[in-house]
């Protein structure tokens, strides 16, 4: 049964509450279930109105994000969205596919973050002893493996898409509901970022330095960014350079067993003894 009244679920990811409204009871239920743990009673900063269509199945290959006047136009085979950053309001036409919903939200957050000096990164992230560690790499590099190997005292923020915002000292990582192979949402919490590791699997655990240029190159390769917009690309490159200047970035070669977390803890201990940016 479809109600004509719009109902709202406010979803707060990365400290940014967005009101998602729909007339469809079942879609509202899907929203609330999918983002359980990220539902918020905070006043929304942004609003998205969802209208359901019978557009095609989810697809990653043909997403386009471009400006049309003052609005962002976000299109893929399975959805069509408009969002006006001046008013903070937008509309989405998509089918009831939760993957389409995730994609729209990820793209919207990537646009908001780009303006605020933050970004979404293809990376697992977790909190260890009050600090966040990021593990980035292409599919198969070991993001989900790192989260599976995490000891019980580690808090998982995500096994797939890390959410990063600048703070006074550096950057903060936030939990996200965007899950990868683990098929489990991250915890809705945040911690200051201690280090970013680019993952390689190998016969032994070791941590190696990366040159700043190599770190930026790898970072840019793993940032989720879709917009065809010169100004935002310039801002994103500046953000990547800023991140590299403020956060220790290393290559972590690891053998996939639990001892890799000892390596992470050792690295963290050494950082505390000799602050990187003292």
């Amino acid at each position: 049964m479809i109600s004509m009244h719009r109902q709202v679920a406010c979803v707060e990811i990365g400290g940014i509450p967005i009101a998602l409204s729909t007339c469809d009871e079942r879609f509202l239920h899907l929203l609330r279930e999918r983002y359980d743990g990220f539902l918020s009673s905070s006043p929304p900063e942004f609003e998205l109105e969802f209208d359901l269509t019978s557009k095609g199945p989810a697809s990653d290959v043909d997403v386009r994000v471009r400006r049309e006047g003052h609005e962002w136009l976000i299109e893929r085979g399975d959805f069509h969205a408009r969002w006006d950053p001046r008013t903070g309001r937008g509309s989405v036409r998509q089918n009831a596919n939760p993957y389409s919903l995730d994609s729209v939200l990820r793209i919207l957050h990537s646009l908001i973050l780009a303006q605020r000096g933050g970004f979404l990164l293809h990376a697992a992230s977790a909190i260890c002893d009050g600090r966040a560690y990021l593990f980035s790499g292409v599919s198969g590099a070991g993001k989900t493996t790192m989260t599976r190997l995490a000891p019980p005292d580690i808090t998982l923020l995500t096994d797939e898409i890390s959410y990063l915002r600048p703070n006074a000292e550096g950057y903060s990582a936030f939990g996200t509901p965007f899950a990868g192979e683990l098929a489990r949402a991250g915890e809705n919490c945040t911690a200051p970022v201690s280090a970013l590791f680019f993952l390689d699997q190998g016969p032994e655990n070791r941590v190696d330095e990366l040159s700043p240029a190599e770190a930026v190159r790898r970072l840019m390769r793993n940032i989720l960014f879709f917009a065809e917009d010169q100004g935002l690309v310039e801002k994103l490159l500046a953000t990547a350079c800023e991140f590299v200047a403020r956060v220790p970035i290393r290559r972590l070669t690891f053998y996939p067993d639990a001892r890799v977390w000892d390596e992470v803890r050792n690295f963290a201990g050494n950082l505390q003894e000799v602050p990187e940016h003292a």
Partner: protein
Amino acid sequence: MPETCIYIARSSAIAARALAGEMMVMNSADSTFFTLNEVATTIFQAADGHTPLRDIVRDRVCEQFDIDPEQAQADAEQFVAELSGHGILLVSNQPLASETP
């Protein structure tokens, strides 16, 4: 027979930033990303659209780096061809207006 001049200019559809002596360049149209070494950075920064490539190589590259002029010219032409293929540099036989502000 007079030698043909090559003029190069930076595209406006790129973002570039120097870090630790290297230049990082990103094409905003297709998100391709390049890291330029010091010699390539010198050529990239001198790509104003009206200085011939051979003058850039002679006056900037060979002045700053210990490199054989002929080899430098050949390397520069190869570098320019590669970056122009990715839309980072514009190349012409006539002076160009640089697209970057």
